[in-house]
């Protein structure tokens, strides 16, 4: 199920790898690429969750005010 995605991702990042990130432990190329691949999804999910949480706080704040 995952193979086509993995192949596409590997092809894209295999070609445009930039300078290495230097850490004292090997962060793993696959692990770094995965994060960049899912960055948009994570960012959107985080925005949605933060917004819902903000709305909840705002609504409960309004209720308390009443």
């Amino acid at each position: 199920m995952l193979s086509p995605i993995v192949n596409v991702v590997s092809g894209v990042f295999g070609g445009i790898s930039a300078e290495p990130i230097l850490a004292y432990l090997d962060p793993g190329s696959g692990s770094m690429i995965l994060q960049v691949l899912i960055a948009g999804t994570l960012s959107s999910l985080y925005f949605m969750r933060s917004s819902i949480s903000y709305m909840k706080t705002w609504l409960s704040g309004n209720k308390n005010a009443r």
Partner: protein
Amino acid sequence: MIESARSEASFRDPSGFIFDRGRELFRQVNLSYKDDYDRLIGSGLYAELVGDGLLIPHKEVDAEPAIAEAAYRVLRPERVPFVSYPYEWCFGQYRDAALLTLEVQRRAIGAGMSLKDASAYNVQFRGARPVFIDTLSFEAYHEGEPWVAYRQFCQHFLAPVALMSRVDVRLPQILRANIDGVPMDLASRLLPWRTRFNPGLLMHVHLHARLQGAHGGGSSTAPRRGFGRRSMLGLIDHLASTIRGLRWSPEGEWAGYTEDNTYSAAAHEHKRKLVAEFLEIAGPSTVWDLGANTGEYSRIASGRGSSTVSFDLDPACVERNYIEAARDGEAGLLPLVLDLANPSPGLGWRNRERASLTGRGPADLVLALALIHHLAIANNLPFPHVVDFFHEAGRWLVVEFVPKDDPQVGRLLRSRRDIFDAYNLKEFEASFRERFAIHRAEPIAESGRVLYLMQGTG
């Protein structure tokens, strides 16, 4: 001059290391870590984390460094009462340790820093509360860069917790063979196929394993951009919600927890009274309760101020013990999973990186209640072998002799030939007198059992 001994577990990170001098524990901060250390303190992150009980506190001290030419500071960190390892944690402890690490990372990002490693060995327990112990794990956060410790977090935390929840709660034992956490390909192969429908496990375990496979473990050339602050916070949030969604309940296949039900109320009360009395006489600072079940007698020890580790083989008992200890905010009670017939060995580099069970002792006092028949009969251990182990584990010993006509021993012998002629009170006492002085021997009311208070000799 007192010799400094560098910790055998502290060598990977060039930022500094732990060392012992006399009976005191120190951490040397190296000059190479100066900027990050100053940022940790100056940003207020250290004070915030310590204030909320998430990071171990330390004092900057004017002590001689172990390696003077590399040193920037010498710290004296608070000592945790007992060092435990992830393969000794129950499910709840493992999950809480994972969530603690993510919370530390979330707050670090807020302060312009990030964790450069996410090892499960960086978390310890003070009673039932996890605490992050590696003060040198923080580095400056460069927005746009992915989390360098993501791989380690998934191997050390997400994979073991997922395996405990979705396959078998005993699986942290895999960590005894894999010092750097569960490899992602192994975790992916062991998890049931249906876990691909869990978005968190699909992303962080299955896809992660495939990408690692495609790119090998070689040098990390990866894009430096495209991972903004919101993505980083999203990653932390997503990992946390994935872990929070993983559950395991001590109900079900692990029933355990029936041992003491054979006591009458009077016998039970008498045993509690004797244990409390013996603890008062010995006055231990540290207690190991071996075969503790859900920790009823451990609580007598922790209640009188002894720092107590409550070991049991059954993960369900340890889980119940931990849930109760966490609920009550027990500061002096640490429940852990341990098979006494095969206790944690020395592991890692030269077998010295992670200490064996007895390497972390001895305790001032060992409690061995309703245990002797499990060792001598269920595990075929002759009394002298048991005596040697107890002598190594503790200075004082409270041990309960359970006679052969006891229903619990009968249960163990039900489907076995009785080859245990030497299992009797006379042999028991003779064997223990070889290495212990017997101070008290009290029959427990309404039972054939005898409770002993002994002190190690020689």
